[in-house]
């Protein structure tokens, strides 16, 4: 672990440096145009500072995004007219509000998808007919861009009167479902013939084989697919917010930012989504480490 911190920091620093360097040529044209219109000349030093503090830059500098993130979360809630301090409820202009809307749909969908996925995996492992007929389709479905049906699910459910969190959660559930099925089938089959034979010599019932052997040995596979599933669920929720037209949620912030050319807002929403994804994957990872350590499966 200690061996990776310095290299990681170096790589991150290099990426940030490249980013800042890229701001100059990308945003420079606008600065030169402004100067030409005003009839003045810009020196290189002015050019560099100007490219880092535009309202609608083509590429915002990292510190602009950080400031926007701070302003649209903590500052908005603390001092904003509709903020938490003034009104007691989350402001609809803050990324905390939008992030929570996306996160709640993600978590609901992830829960449903994971639960159903585990159930189907149990069915597939215990029923030869399901193994032969359903499993090939579950594997094949990994290769299709299922995200394409997201707009249809939203609009059709809207048409029959289901709105709000449920349609987005269904998309998230659908996206996290298949990785969990495929991973869990592999995991529940992980015990080798020797271990299964041992259970048979103990005259264990198939329920006992499941709870004492198959389920525990599937845990590493479960967590691996949970990490894939939760990232997919978040993407599903974000894309699910697009077709209803920028109402609420991180996807809506992306869409409204792209409508009005608010690049800093887009990047801030993007980073909020990235922070959400990273912390959820990290959370699953932490639970994984805890669980596997208690089960004695890690050294």
């Amino acid at each position, binding site marked *: 672990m200690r*061996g*990776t911190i*310095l*290299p*990681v*920091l*170096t*790589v*991150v620093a290099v*990426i940030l440096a490249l980013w800042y360097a890229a701001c100059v040529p990308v945003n420079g044209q606008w600065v030169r145009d402004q100067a030409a219109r005003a009839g003045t000349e810009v020196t290189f030093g002015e050019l560099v500072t100007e490219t880092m503090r535009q309202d609608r830059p*083509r590429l915002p500098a990292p510190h602009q995004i950080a400031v926007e993130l701070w302003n649209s979360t903590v500052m908005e809630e603390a001092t904003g007219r509709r903020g938490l301090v003034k009104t007691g409820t989350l402001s609809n202009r803050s990324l905390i509000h939008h992030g929570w809307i996306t996160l709640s749909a993600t978590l609901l969908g992830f829960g449903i998808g994971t639960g159903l996925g585990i159930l189907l995996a149990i069915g597939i492992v215990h029923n*030869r*007919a399901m*193994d*032969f*007929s*359903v*499993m*090939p*389709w579950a594997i*094949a479905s*990994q*290769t*299709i*861009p299922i*995200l*394409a*049906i997201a*707009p*249809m699910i939203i*609009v*059709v459910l809207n*048409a*029959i009167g289901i709105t709000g969190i449920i349609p987005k959660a269904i998309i998230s559930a659908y996206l996290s479902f298949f990785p969990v099925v495929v991973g869990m089938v592999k995991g529940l089959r992980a015990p080798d013939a020797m271990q299964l034979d041992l259970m048979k010599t103990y005259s264990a019932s198939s329920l006992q084989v499941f709870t004492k052997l198959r389920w525990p040995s599937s845990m590493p596979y479960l967590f691996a697919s949970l*990490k894939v599933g939760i*990232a997919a669920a*978040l*993407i599903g929720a*974000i*894309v699910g917010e*697009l*077709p209803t037209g920028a109402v609420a949620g*991180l*996807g809506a912030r*992306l*869409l409204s*930012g*792209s409508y009005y*050319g608010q*690049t800093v807002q*887009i*990047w801030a*929403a*993007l980073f909020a*989504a*990235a922070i959400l*994804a*990273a912390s959820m*994957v990290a959370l699953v990872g932490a639970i994984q480490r805890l669980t596997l350590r208690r089960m004695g499966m890690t050294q």
Partner: protein
Amino acid sequence: MRGILQGSGAPQRLGMAIMLSAAIALGMTQVSVGQPSGPVLVLLAVALALAFVADAAHRATQRPQSDRPWVPVVLLLLICGSLAGAGIGLMQVTRGTGTPAFWCAVIAVWLGAWMVVAQLSDLHLRPGGWAERLRGLLAPLVFGITLLWLWQTGVRGGGVANVILPAPSDIALRFVASAGVLWGDFVQTFVKGALSGYAIGVAAALVFAVLVDRSDFLRRGLLPVGNFVAALPIIGTAPIMVMWFGFGWESKAAVVVAMVFFPMLVNTVQGLTETEAMQRDLMRTYSASYWQGLWKLRLPAAMPFIFNGLKICSTLALIGAIVAEFFGSPTRGMGFRISTEVGRLNLDMVWSEIAVAAVAGSAFYGILAALERGVTFWHPSQRGR
């Protein structure tokens, strides 16, 4: 009695018998449109009777000295035939006129198909033989066809509105009628957007991985960062790319490049470390140069990882190209068509586009998997089959 309650597919057989009796009883009490016709009920009864025979035959042929192992197979095919006949009969229902007897018959057909799959999977076939391979193909096929048939019959019999769920036949008609539009969208999104972005992103990641691989420091720094970035919702860069590169396919390709770069990089860098010290030492005793070692040993050894990355990225590329079009596109493209036709409630067109996306996605993946089999034939995961 034992034959009814035990053996493969017994619960389904029992359910089928109950549903068939219910269909006959309900069908006789009232005569109206939408009842299952006489031939349908007869075919169902034939299938049920054959199922009992097949189960008995199955039991008999599983004894060690069986001289007629083909009997259960033929019987299963006969059951399939009569179920298909009943299914086709039920599909002729007038729109929205499904009666309780009709639904009982539908459930009976579904249970029958399930029973066929159950009996099929319980047949003891020689592993690796042609019969076993055929079963591996037949079982998912029966499942898929049954699902499609349930969709078609359910939508027809239940009179589900077209704006909620169109029947597969409507989708097929629309698919054929607007093949030209679909082809244009396919070229715009898949060939121009996804494939070009995929090629650029994957090539860049491969080159970058080889460069990174020369420095242990860079590798240790980039692997965690790359893994981290690969888990982020990069699809969200789509509005930015549309702003930078315009509405054309170039912005879609840019999104795809951003999406595939890091998963590909991480997989390749990981793969390049997969050689053993012994193998590297051997190359050194041959006095191989760095590039010879890379070309002759480390790249081939990395191929399983590279192909894993290529396969993951193939799905990502198609998703990226389609979703990026939701943020702005010329008036063609799969994502554009999906979002506009959804708005006009032309769901049959949407489903046609989804069918194109599904076929394109699995064909892309299939080609990569076939290539992988050719290139990494030496790897244990390929030899097992």
